[in-house]
């Protein structure tokens, strides 16, 4: 549905994105992840034909974003960052305007406006001026206008920013409900959001693609070792030494102490080797108190941080 090939965009001397290529299948929800200023918004703006790339091409629904921009825009719903809207209009007038601009017939307009207002839960504010609405409602109005015209592709730049937790869940449900019928690209820096709503994740940093995969694959792929957190009551240096010689343990890292004689360690071992029993035995053998012992999973957050910092080290 969306094919991006070696997209680059430079603003003067600044390279916003460089050589970005990816493909999004029809009906897929793709998460776009990256720290601030990584090039998420730039990529989205290029895909929505707001601005052309410096080099590279992209096709949306089979149409070239540069040469067939109007065709692309007809098949696209876009929620820009911070949901800019015409604040001097009531919600329903604005949606009518959006529907007219998108070329819907009068009958379709009425039907679809009712539909999207229901979907986004803005029916009860439909006669209020957009300028008077709270951030959460504005965000939903922005989503509603994007859904008008039943576009094949939705591009959402941080769609859940500024919403309260309940609204976030609603919007996520709504986006998830679109899976299969619509192709969605959503950018965010809220990591759990990605693992909850997206089938695939793209991590972008400093304008370059760092990783493209499913959230599960990303976490397992990067998990080269399994990690344990151990909290022991005993002398720190000796504990570290003793744990280091347990068979199967690769590294032991002290991770801060605690009140009194308590020491916390992160133990890394081979991926498929369970060393918990041996670690427990070693601690008990020395007559130290074993206060805590639990596996630490690599979260998407760790993956993200790891990828982003790795990138930094390699470029530095």
């Amino acid at each position, binding site marked *: 549905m969306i094919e991006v090939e070696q997209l680059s*965009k430079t*603003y003067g001397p600044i390279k916003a994105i460089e050589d970005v290529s990816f493909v999004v299948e029809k009906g897929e929800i793709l998460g776009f992840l990256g720290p601030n200023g990584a090039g998420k918004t*730039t990529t989205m*703006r290029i895909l*929505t*034909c*707001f*601005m*052309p790339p410096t080099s590279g091409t992209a096709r949306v629904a089979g149409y070239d974003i540069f040469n067939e921009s*109007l065709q692309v*825009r*007809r098949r*696209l719903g*876009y929620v*820009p960052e*911070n949901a*800019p*809207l*015409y*604040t*001097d*209009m009531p919600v329903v*007038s604005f949606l009518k*305007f*959006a529907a*007219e*601009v*998108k*070329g819907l017939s009068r009958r379709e307009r009425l039907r679809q406006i009712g539909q999207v207002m229901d979907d986004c839960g803005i029916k009860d504010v439909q006669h209020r001026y957009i300028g008077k609405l709270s951030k959460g409602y504005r965000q939903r109005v922005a989503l509603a*206008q994007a859904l008008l015209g039943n576009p094949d592709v939705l591009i959402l730049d941080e769609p859940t920013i500024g919403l309260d937790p309940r609204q976030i869940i609603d919007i996520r449900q709504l986006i998830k409900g679109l899976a299969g019928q619509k192709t969605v690209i959503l950018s965010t820096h809220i990591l759990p959001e990605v693992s909850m709503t997206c089938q695939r994740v793209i991590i972008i940093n400093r304008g370059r693609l760092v990783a493209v995969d499913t959230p599960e694959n990303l976490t397992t792929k990067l998990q080269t070792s399994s990690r344990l957190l151990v909290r022991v009551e005993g002398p720190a240096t000796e504990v570290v030494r003793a744990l280091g010689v347990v068979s199967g343990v690769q590294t032991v890292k002290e991770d801060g102490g605690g009140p009194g004689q308590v020491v916390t360690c992160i133990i890394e071992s081979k991926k498929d080797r369970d060393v918990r029993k041996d670690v427990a035995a070693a601690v008990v053998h020395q007559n130290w108190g074993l206060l805590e012992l639990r596996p630490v999973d690599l979260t998407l957050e760790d993956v993200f941080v790891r990828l982003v910092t790795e990138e930094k080290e390699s470029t530095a």
Partner: protein
Amino acid sequence: MSSFWPIFKRELRAYFVSPIAYVVMVMFLTIAGYFFYSSFAFFNFIGFQAMSNPMMARNLNVTEGVLRPLYGNLGVVLLFIMPLLTMRLFAEEKKQGTIELLLTYPVRDLAAVLAKFAACLAVYTVMLALTAVYPVLLIIFAQPEVGPILAGYLGLFLLGAAFIALGALASSLTENQIVAAAISFGFLLFFWVIGWSSQFAGSGIGGLLSHLSLLEHFDSFPKGIIDTKDVIFYLNFLVFCLFLTLRSLESHRWRG
């Protein structure tokens, strides 16, 4: 061009939802009313004098004496007031970020530019139509010639349209409305006074300078002369400005 109408309606609505259109109209009409009163009072004064001087009375003409100076003054007032109407056209959308929404809708840039221009022109036309009370008053109490009145209005319409096109261009250059107003006011003023130096600039350049002057071309309309040279000048000016506006919008896309 199907997207022209919704944008046109939205723009027109924006003028009347905010106080801009009302404030500008009230100011314009107040000043126009004052000019009408003063030129009428002056004509009245001359009229009394003419009672004792039949030679003078023969040259008295209510169209020439009241409406022509009125139209001339309105042209100058427009120069001050029009930037206030045009400054928001693109600058506001850029500031609020809604330009991103508008330009990612299936809308041709040309349709957006024309719709915005037309909406502002519509507000101006309403404003201009409201000044018709003055010639109507004259028609009730005197016998002015209708031809020059209509020609004068055509002239004001073309002049205003040219001003709006320049204002739209200025507005597309910046995201700050004050800057947009300052640019368009400066250029309008410049295109007005550029004709003044024609008197000492020598025949070649002087002719060119006076030909460039926006108000110079307006002069003949209230006399009842519709010269194609003047009409074409305004249309040229207008098309050129709108063309540049379109380019400026495109370059905004390129630069991001």
